[in-house]
Protein backbone atom coordinates (compact mmCIF):
# COMPACT_ATOMS: atom_id res chain seq x y z
CA UNK A 1 0.00 0.00 0.00
CA UNK A 2 1.49 3.33 -1.04
CA UNK A 3 1.16 6.57 0.90
CA UNK A 4 -2.11 8.53 0.95
CA UNK A 5 -2.61 12.01 2.34
CA UNK A 6 -5.84 13.87 3.07
CA UNK A 7 -5.75 17.55 3.95
CA UNK A 8 -7.99 19.44 6.36
CA UNK A 9 -7.79 23.08 7.35
CA UNK A 10 -8.36 23.76 11.07
CA UNK A 11 -8.01 27.45 11.85
CA UNK A 12 -4.53 28.41 10.65
CA UNK A 13 -3.27 24.83 10.62
CA UNK A 14 -3.23 22.42 7.70
CA UNK A 15 -3.75 18.95 9.12
CA UNK A 16 -2.41 16.20 6.88
CA UNK A 17 -3.82 12.74 7.61
CA UNK A 18 -1.14 10.41 6.28
CA UNK A 19 -1.72 6.69 5.79
CA UNK A 20 0.23 3.80 4.29
CA UNK A 21 3.96 3.64 3.67
CA UNK A 22 6.47 6.48 3.81
CA UNK A 23 9.37 4.74 2.12
CA UNK A 24 11.99 5.42 -0.55
CA UNK A 25 10.28 6.13 -3.86
CA UNK A 26 6.63 7.05 -4.17
CA UNK A 27 5.87 7.67 -0.48
CA UNK A 28 8.79 10.03 0.08
CA UNK A 29 8.21 11.87 -3.19
CA UNK A 30 4.53 12.41 -2.40
CA UNK A 31 5.33 13.78 1.04
CA UNK A 32 7.99 16.14 -0.34
CA UNK A 33 5.65 17.47 -3.03
CA UNK A 34 2.85 17.90 -0.54
CA UNK A 35 5.01 20.04 1.76
CA UNK A 36 6.25 22.15 -1.17
CA UNK A 37 2.71 22.59 -2.47
CA UNK A 38 1.37 23.74 0.88
CA UNK A 39 4.26 26.18 1.38
CA UNK A 40 3.58 27.50 -2.12
CA UNK A 41 -0.02 28.19 -1.10
CA UNK A 42 1.16 30.03 1.97
CA UNK A 43 0.16 27.26 4.39
CA UNK A 44 3.11 27.32 6.76
CA UNK A 45 1.59 25.52 9.73
CA UNK A 46 1.57 21.82 8.98
CA UNK A 47 0.45 19.08 11.36
CA UNK A 48 1.21 15.59 10.08
CA UNK A 49 -1.15 13.02 11.57
CA UNK A 50 0.80 9.75 11.32
CA UNK A 51 -1.76 7.52 13.08
CA UNK A 52 -2.35 5.36 10.00
CA UNK A 53 1.23 5.11 8.79
CA UNK A 54 1.91 1.39 8.46
CA UNK A 55 5.59 1.53 7.57
CA UNK A 56 8.35 4.13 7.58
CA UNK A 57 11.97 3.51 6.63
CA UNK A 58 15.18 5.54 6.93
CA UNK A 59 14.26 7.51 3.79
CA UNK A 60 10.83 8.26 5.24
CA UNK A 61 12.43 9.53 8.43
CA UNK A 62 14.75 11.64 6.26
CA UNK A 63 11.73 13.04 4.45
CA UNK A 64 10.16 14.09 7.77
CA UNK A 65 13.43 15.85 8.66
CA UNK A 66 13.54 17.48 5.24
CA UNK A 67 9.94 18.69 5.63
CA UNK A 68 10.71 20.00 9.12
CA UNK A 69 13.74 22.02 7.98
CA UNK A 70 12.10 23.26 4.76
CA UNK A 71 9.04 24.53 6.64
CA UNK A 72 11.16 26.02 9.46
CA UNK A 73 13.41 27.81 6.95
CA UNK A 74 10.33 29.51 5.52
CA UNK A 75 9.18 30.70 8.91
CA UNK A 76 6.58 27.97 9.40
CA UNK A 77 6.16 24.99 11.71
CA UNK A 78 5.84 21.30 10.96
CA UNK A 79 4.62 19.20 13.88
CA UNK A 80 3.75 15.53 14.29
CA UNK A 81 0.57 13.98 15.68
CA UNK A 82 -0.38 10.47 16.79
CA UNK A 83 2.82 8.50 16.27
CA UNK A 84 2.46 4.73 16.09
CA UNK A 85 4.74 2.79 18.42
CA UNK A 86 7.03 1.87 15.53
CA UNK A 87 7.44 5.48 14.37
CA UNK A 88 7.85 6.64 17.98
CA UNK A 89 10.62 4.07 18.56
CA UNK A 90 12.40 5.00 15.33
CA UNK A 91 12.40 8.69 16.21
CA UNK A 92 13.76 7.86 19.65
CA UNK A 93 16.65 5.72 18.48
CA UNK A 94 17.59 8.26 15.81
CA UNK A 95 17.55 11.07 18.42
CA UNK A 96 14.85 12.91 16.48
CA UNK A 97 12.17 12.60 19.13
CA UNK A 98 13.33 15.80 20.79
CA UNK A 99 13.76 17.65 17.49
CA UNK A 100 10.12 17.39 16.46
CA UNK A 101 7.21 18.87 18.36
CA UNK A 102 5.13 15.72 18.88
CA UNK A 103 1.51 15.55 20.08
CA UNK A 104 -1.08 12.90 20.76
CA UNK A 105 -4.07 15.23 21.08
CA UNK A 106 -5.17 17.05 17.93
CA UNK A 107 -6.90 19.98 19.66
CA UNK A 108 -3.85 20.63 21.82
CA UNK A 109 -1.58 20.31 18.80
CA UNK A 110 -3.66 22.90 16.91
CA UNK A 111 -3.60 25.15 19.97
CA UNK A 112 0.17 24.90 20.17
CA UNK A 113 0.50 26.57 16.75
CA UNK A 114 -1.74 29.42 17.86
CA UNK A 115 0.22 29.94 21.06
CA UNK A 116 3.39 30.28 19.01
CA UNK A 117 1.75 32.85 16.73
CA UNK A 118 0.47 35.11 19.52
Amino acid at each position, binding site marked *: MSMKATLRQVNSVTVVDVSGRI*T*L*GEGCTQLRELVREQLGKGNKNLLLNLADVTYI*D*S*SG*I*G*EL*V*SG*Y*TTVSNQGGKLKLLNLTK*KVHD*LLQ*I*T*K*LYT*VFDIHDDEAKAIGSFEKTES
Partner: protein
Amino acid sequence: MTAEGSVVEVVLESDLRNVEVAEEITRRVSGTAGFTEDDQHKIDMAVHETLINAIWHGNKNDPSKHVWLRYEIFRDRLEIRVRDQGNGYDPASVPDPLKDENVLNVSGRGIFLIRTFMDEYRVENQAGQGTEVILVKRLNSNNSGDQSRREVP
Protein backbone atom coordinates in the same frame (compact mmCIF):
# COMPACT_ATOMS: atom_id res chain seq x y z
CA MET B 1 11.62 -19.24 -4.35
CA THR B 2 12.84 -22.58 -3.02
CA ALA B 3 12.27 -23.79 0.53
CA GLU B 4 14.41 -26.77 1.42
CA GLY B 5 14.70 -27.58 5.08
CA SER B 6 15.82 -24.43 6.84
CA VAL B 7 17.07 -22.50 3.82
CA VAL B 8 15.12 -20.10 1.62
CA GLU B 9 16.70 -18.54 -1.46
CA VAL B 10 15.18 -15.79 -3.58
CA VAL B 11 16.36 -13.90 -6.65
CA LEU B 12 14.77 -10.51 -7.28
CA GLU B 13 15.06 -8.01 -10.09
CA SER B 14 16.39 -4.58 -9.09
CA ASP B 15 13.04 -2.89 -8.72
CA LEU B 16 12.00 -1.02 -5.59
CA ARG B 17 8.58 -2.69 -5.82
CA ASN B 18 10.32 -5.95 -4.96
CA VAL B 19 11.27 -4.59 -1.55
CA GLU B 20 7.73 -5.32 -0.34
CA VAL B 21 8.02 -8.86 -1.72
CA ALA B 22 11.20 -9.36 0.31
CA GLU B 23 9.52 -7.91 3.41
CA GLU B 24 6.73 -10.48 3.16
CA ILE B 25 9.21 -13.36 2.76
CA THR B 26 11.28 -12.02 5.65
CA ARG B 27 8.26 -11.89 7.95
CA ARG B 28 7.35 -15.49 7.10
CA VAL B 29 10.86 -16.78 7.60
CA SER B 30 11.48 -14.89 10.84
CA GLY B 31 8.07 -15.99 12.16
CA THR B 32 8.92 -19.60 11.33
CA ALA B 33 12.28 -19.19 13.05
CA GLY B 34 10.42 -18.31 16.25
CA PHE B 35 11.07 -14.59 16.61
CA THR B 36 8.64 -12.36 18.48
CA GLU B 37 6.53 -9.91 16.48
CA ASP B 38 8.76 -7.07 17.65
CA ASP B 39 11.91 -8.86 16.48
CA GLN B 40 10.20 -9.83 13.20
CA HIS B 41 9.65 -6.14 12.52
CA LYS B 42 13.29 -5.34 13.34
CA ILE B 43 14.54 -8.08 11.00
CA ASP B 44 12.06 -6.94 8.34
CA MET B 45 13.35 -3.36 8.59
CA ALA B 46 16.99 -4.47 8.45
CA VAL B 47 16.31 -6.48 5.29
CA HIS B 48 14.30 -3.57 3.84
CA GLU B 49 17.21 -1.16 4.38
CA THR B 50 19.79 -3.66 3.08
CA LEU B 51 17.72 -4.33 -0.02
CA ILE B 52 17.26 -0.62 -0.69
CA ASN B 53 21.05 -0.22 -0.50
CA ALA B 54 21.51 -3.19 -2.86
CA ILE B 55 18.97 -2.00 -5.44
CA TRP B 56 19.48 1.75 -5.21
CA HIS B 57 23.17 2.13 -4.41
CA GLY B 58 24.61 -1.24 -5.46
CA ASN B 59 22.73 -2.02 -8.65
CA LYS B 60 21.96 1.67 -9.40
CA ASN B 61 18.28 0.78 -9.91
CA ASP B 62 19.20 -1.13 -13.08
CA PRO B 63 16.37 -3.65 -13.67
CA SER B 64 18.68 -5.93 -15.64
CA LYS B 65 20.65 -6.54 -12.46
CA HIS B 66 19.56 -8.84 -9.64
CA VAL B 67 19.65 -9.17 -5.88
CA TRP B 68 20.05 -12.57 -4.21
CA LEU B 69 18.60 -13.24 -0.77
CA ARG B 70 19.40 -16.28 1.29
CA TYR B 71 17.79 -17.03 4.63
CA GLU B 72 19.12 -19.79 6.84
CA ILE B 73 17.48 -20.75 10.09
CA PHE B 74 19.80 -22.20 12.71
CA ARG B 75 18.92 -23.51 16.14
CA ASP B 76 20.00 -20.25 17.77
CA ARG B 77 19.84 -17.64 15.01
CA LEU B 78 18.63 -16.49 11.62
CA GLU B 79 21.30 -15.63 9.08
CA ILE B 80 20.38 -13.56 6.02
CA ARG B 81 22.65 -12.87 3.09
CA VAL B 82 21.86 -10.14 0.54
CA ARG B 83 24.08 -9.99 -2.56
CA ASP B 84 23.98 -7.37 -5.29
CA GLN B 85 25.98 -6.71 -8.46
CA GLY B 86 27.42 -3.39 -7.36
CA ASN B 87 30.91 -2.18 -6.58
CA GLY B 88 30.58 -2.34 -2.83
CA TYR B 89 30.94 0.21 -0.08
CA ASP B 90 32.62 0.73 3.23
CA PRO B 91 29.99 1.01 5.99
CA ALA B 92 32.56 2.78 8.16
CA SER B 93 32.55 5.69 5.69
CA VAL B 94 28.94 6.57 6.56
CA PRO B 95 28.85 9.41 9.14
CA ASP B 96 27.35 8.67 12.55
CA PRO B 97 23.73 9.91 12.27
CA LEU B 98 23.53 10.42 16.04
CA LYS B 99 26.23 13.08 16.16
CA ASP B 100 24.76 16.52 16.79
CA GLU B 101 25.96 17.84 13.44
CA ASN B 102 24.29 14.94 11.58
CA VAL B 103 20.97 14.58 13.41
CA LEU B 104 19.16 16.79 10.89
CA ASN B 105 20.73 15.13 7.84
CA VAL B 106 18.15 13.89 5.37
CA SER B 107 19.99 10.62 4.63
CA GLY B 108 22.50 8.29 6.27
CA ARG B 109 20.35 6.38 8.79
CA GLY B 110 19.88 3.08 6.94
CA ILE B 111 23.06 1.32 8.06
CA PHE B 112 22.61 2.69 11.58
CA LEU B 113 19.14 1.08 11.74
CA ILE B 114 20.47 -2.23 10.39
CA ARG B 115 23.21 -2.26 13.04
CA THR B 116 20.71 -1.34 15.75
CA PHE B 117 18.19 -4.03 14.82
CA MET B 118 20.53 -6.95 14.10
CA ASP B 119 23.15 -8.71 16.23
CA GLU B 120 25.67 -8.88 13.40
CA TYR B 121 26.14 -6.86 10.22
CA ARG B 122 29.01 -7.58 7.86
CA VAL B 123 29.74 -6.34 4.36
CA GLU B 124 31.91 -8.44 2.06
CA ASN B 125 32.98 -6.76 -1.16
CA GLN B 126 33.77 -9.48 -3.70
CA ALA B 127 35.88 -8.13 -6.55
CA GLY B 128 33.90 -8.38 -9.78
CA GLN B 129 31.09 -10.34 -8.13
CA GLY B 130 29.20 -7.65 -6.25
CA THR B 131 28.69 -7.07 -2.56
CA GLU B 132 27.33 -9.49 0.01
CA VAL B 133 25.80 -8.27 3.25
CA ILE B 134 25.42 -10.76 6.09
CA LEU B 135 22.81 -10.09 8.74
CA VAL B 136 22.46 -12.22 11.86
CA LYS B 137 19.73 -12.12 14.49
CA ARG B 138 19.97 -14.43 17.48
CA LEU B 139 16.98 -16.01 19.13
CA ASN B 140 16.51 -15.30 22.83
CA SER B 141 17.55 -18.18 25.02
CA ASN B 142 13.91 -18.82 26.00
CA ASN B 143 13.10 -19.26 22.30
CA SER B 144 15.95 -21.61 21.54
CA GLY B 145 14.12 -24.88 21.06
CA ASP B 146 15.06 -27.20 18.21
CA GLN B 147 14.35 -24.99 15.22
CA SER B 148 17.09 -26.27 12.98
CA ARG B 149 14.76 -28.07 10.56
CA ARG B 150 11.66 -25.94 10.40
CA GLU B 151 9.81 -25.82 7.10
CA VAL B 152 9.02 -22.36 5.80
CA PRO B 153 5.36 -22.09 4.73
